[in-house]
């Protein structure tokens, strides 16, 4: 049974190889055009700062997400499902929009400082490492919460009932049920956040406060755009990728399967302890809801006035963005499911790497490399939208893979043999086993992929022709021409469309799973 070749077992490695090629070929193309690479002390300082802020952002986002996810898992309250859905919103904000939203709360004349001044306290500054981490936590805490919440919901009710019958208190429940689940889920969650923060650029620079807050991606921009030193750009992108590889291997080593075994889908919520834990959960929920909702409200507030006076190019750009998002989401979901199912049978660090490293690639090097690769064969402009779809697929796949993997593993452990013994293969297995059992994470993941592909500038800026701009590009063009009000409104449309796409997929998945 171990060595029989099923179609799936061939497709998945091919797909992994394709992804790695997509990451490495542009890097090689850029490196080949450049003449040898040499990194100076400033470059290494950028590497250090990038890694530091990414580690902090990943650790804090993940740790803070645990109490929020637990409170959501074990409490029932009005507005709970709204809050869960709202968790989808922040990480699909374009970086600049998110920063302006945060400034409305934490900025010099933001709500927090107004309150501090009113109370006679000194104002605080958001600029610096702490501001960068704050923004990354704002963007990634909801994602982490949703992923961990999936973990909580996947603990079979049979195990919960056993725990309750054995009289487990909250600390025993944590030790025997929750901690094993977290051991399985947390490394992967921290990994995607770390890798995405590693390549963060606009957020880090805008809130960093000065040149000391320099990331690898900025050094790459400088190398490509002002110096046209492609060798140095490729070297920096290689370092960024290497850090990503180390993170993948570390997460691979730290992950332990929880091994809860299967349940019978009997709905049984976790017990909701009373006393101070009740207050603790309430605090976690209120604080996180405010932390997420206030900047989002600011984005909404800023965007409303300009809605009536938008340039005509917004509508076609929005249509193009939605088309790109849907195509990318479909491709990414298919590919990530294929990889996750294969990895659930025979996991390997190679598969993990292929499914994670696209996030660690430099957007600029990826775009430049693809440009160099495509140029001999076709005018790059004519391929702007296909290339954007391809890149968005590759960039959203890691999230999907991370969301699907734990559940694909559980599916394989619980029902793999039964399905095999019933000759449940191919389409039948997908239709009757995989899709119904993974509906919830598939819907959530597809929603994330669609939303990210809406919001992500990707490489379109390098490829876009005269009439191919997507909505994020129009937003950035508007902000570049003093038209901040129109930009805020276009951004609001972008965010709303992303959110609707996300909500439709996510709710669809949850309904199908119910």
């Amino acid at each position, binding site marked *: 049974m171990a060595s029989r070749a099923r179609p799936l077992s061939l497709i998945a490695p091919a797909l992994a190889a394709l992804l790695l090629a997509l990451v490495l070929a542009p890097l090689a193309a850029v490196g080949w055009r450049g003449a040898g690479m040499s990194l100076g002390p400033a470059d290494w300082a950028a590497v250090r700062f990038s890694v530091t802020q990414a580690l902090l952002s990943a650790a804090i986002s993940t740790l803070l997400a645990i109490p929020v996810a637990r409170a959501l898992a074990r409490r029932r309250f009005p507005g709970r499902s709204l809050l869960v859905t709202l968790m989808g919103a922040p990480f699909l904000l374009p970086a600049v929009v998110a920063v302006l939203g945060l400034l409305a709360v934490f900025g*010099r004349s933001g709500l927090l400082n107004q309150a501090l001044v009113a109370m006679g306290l000194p104002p605080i500054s958001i600029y610096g490492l702490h501001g960068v981490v704050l923004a990354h936590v704002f963007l990634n805490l909801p994602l982490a919460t949703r992923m961990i919440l999936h973990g909580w919901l996947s603990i079979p009710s049979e195990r919960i009932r056993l725990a309750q019958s054995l009289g487990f208190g909250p600390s025993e429940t944590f030790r025997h049920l929750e901690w094993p689940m977290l051991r399985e889920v947390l490394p992967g969650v921290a990994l995607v956040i770390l890798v995405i923060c590693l390549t963060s650029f606009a957020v880090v620079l805008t809130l960093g406060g000065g040149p000391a807050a320099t990331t690898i991606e900025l050094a790459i921009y400088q190398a490509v755009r002002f110096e046209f030193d492609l060798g140095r750009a490729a070297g920096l992108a290689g370092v960024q990728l290497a850090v990503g590889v180390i993170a993948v291997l570390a997460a691979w080593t730290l992950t332990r399967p929880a091994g809860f075994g299967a349940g019978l889908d009997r709905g049984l919520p976790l017990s909701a302890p009373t006393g101070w834990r009740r207050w603790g959960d309430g605090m976690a929920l209120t604080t996180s809801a405010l932390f997420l909702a206030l900047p989002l409200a600011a984005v909404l507030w800023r965007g409303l006035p300009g809605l009536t006076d938008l340039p005509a*190019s917004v509508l076609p750009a929005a249509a193009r963005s939605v088309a790109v998002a849907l195509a990318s989401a479909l491709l990414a979901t298919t590919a990530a499911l294929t990889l996750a199912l294969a990895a659930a049978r025979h996991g390997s660090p190679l598969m993990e790497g292929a499914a994670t490293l696209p996030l660690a690639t430099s957007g600029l090097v990826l775009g430049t490399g693809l440009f160099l690769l495509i140029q001999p064969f076709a005018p790059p402009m004519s391929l702007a939208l296909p290339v954007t779809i391809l890149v968005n697929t590759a960039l959203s796949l890691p999230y999907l893979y991370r969301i699907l993997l734990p559940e694909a593993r559980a599916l394989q452990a619980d029902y793999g043999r039964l399905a095999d013994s019933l000759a449940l293969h191919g389409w039948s297995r997908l239709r009757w086993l995989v899709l119904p059992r993974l509906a919830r994470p598939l819907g959530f993941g597809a929603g994330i992929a669609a939303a990210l592909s809406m919001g992500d500038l990707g490489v379109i800026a390098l490829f876009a022709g*005269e009439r191919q701009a997507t909505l994020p590009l129009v937003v950035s063009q508007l902000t570049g021409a003093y038209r901040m009000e129109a930009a805020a409104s276009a951004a609001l449309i972008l965010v709303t469309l992303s959110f609707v796409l996300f909500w439709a997929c996510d709710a669809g998945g949850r309904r199908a799973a119910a």
Partner: protein
Amino acid sequence: MQKHLLAAGLLTIAMPALAETPVLTVLTYDSFTTEWGPGPAIETAFEATCACDLRFVPAGDGAALLARVQLEGAASDADLVLGLDTSLTAAASATQLFAPHGKTPKTDLPVDFADPNFLPFDWGWFAFVHDKTKLPEPPKSFEALAASDVTIVIQDPRSSTPGLGLLLWVKAAYGDRAPEIWQGLADNIVTVTPGWSEAYGLFLEGEADMVLSYTTSPAYHLIAEGDDTKAAALFDEGHYMQIEVAGKLASSDQPDLADQFLDFMLTDAFQSVIPQTNWMYPVITPAAGLPEGFDAFRPAKSLLLSPAEAQAVRDAALAEWQAALAR
């Protein structure tokens, strides 16, 4: 409104290439080609005279332009590049991808400018923009700014042309004293953004008292928004200039048409479009004069390093800047 949007959308889909007419391809920065930028009006005006199809190809922002030209190399479909500035022309000439224009036009630029490969089409002075109602008495020099507790947002010279402009401004005004000026400014700088739009957005949100932009920025608010509260602070040491230029690519398959466009660029039909679309000064003052607000903030002294000097001092100036600001 809805109908217009829809019509624009359909038009976008139904625009196949017009066959038979010669095509002139101009590589430029994004904001030049947008519907609110100079592109559409200039396209219409030039096509009325040339019996050709003028196509603007956007290639990211100004700094990305030169990288794009170098990436495409001699295989480029483009005939002209429009939108480089004088801090980049030395590097651009060094690629040997550009052809000499052979023209000696007369312009209204406040400084002498002549380059064998590049012709200017607009220009501006960098300046710190502020809100008169919140900061009625802005500092009058970098030294006064450094001594004050006025806060500023600037752009990173490694990713933005205004950022690079500021670096050269301080260098041109203070030479060897530049590190000292930067050290003095360190506690005034709220943050350093990757591009102009982030910085300007932060300023409008009230995150800083002043932002690095152009002397013409207040004119935008005055004309487009009817808001006269914005002003540019005039500095005694003079203001660094940004001159935006266009050049013909040696690999062009339409060299005559490209020459024709360069000539057109210095006519009133092109120049009169610039002020209220690109919010920069035209290099030849239009027959109808400059719009309201363009004469409000005119520095007494203009600073500009030659392209060769700018190229020569850049790396050292950048290192000084990083050392002074890295706390």
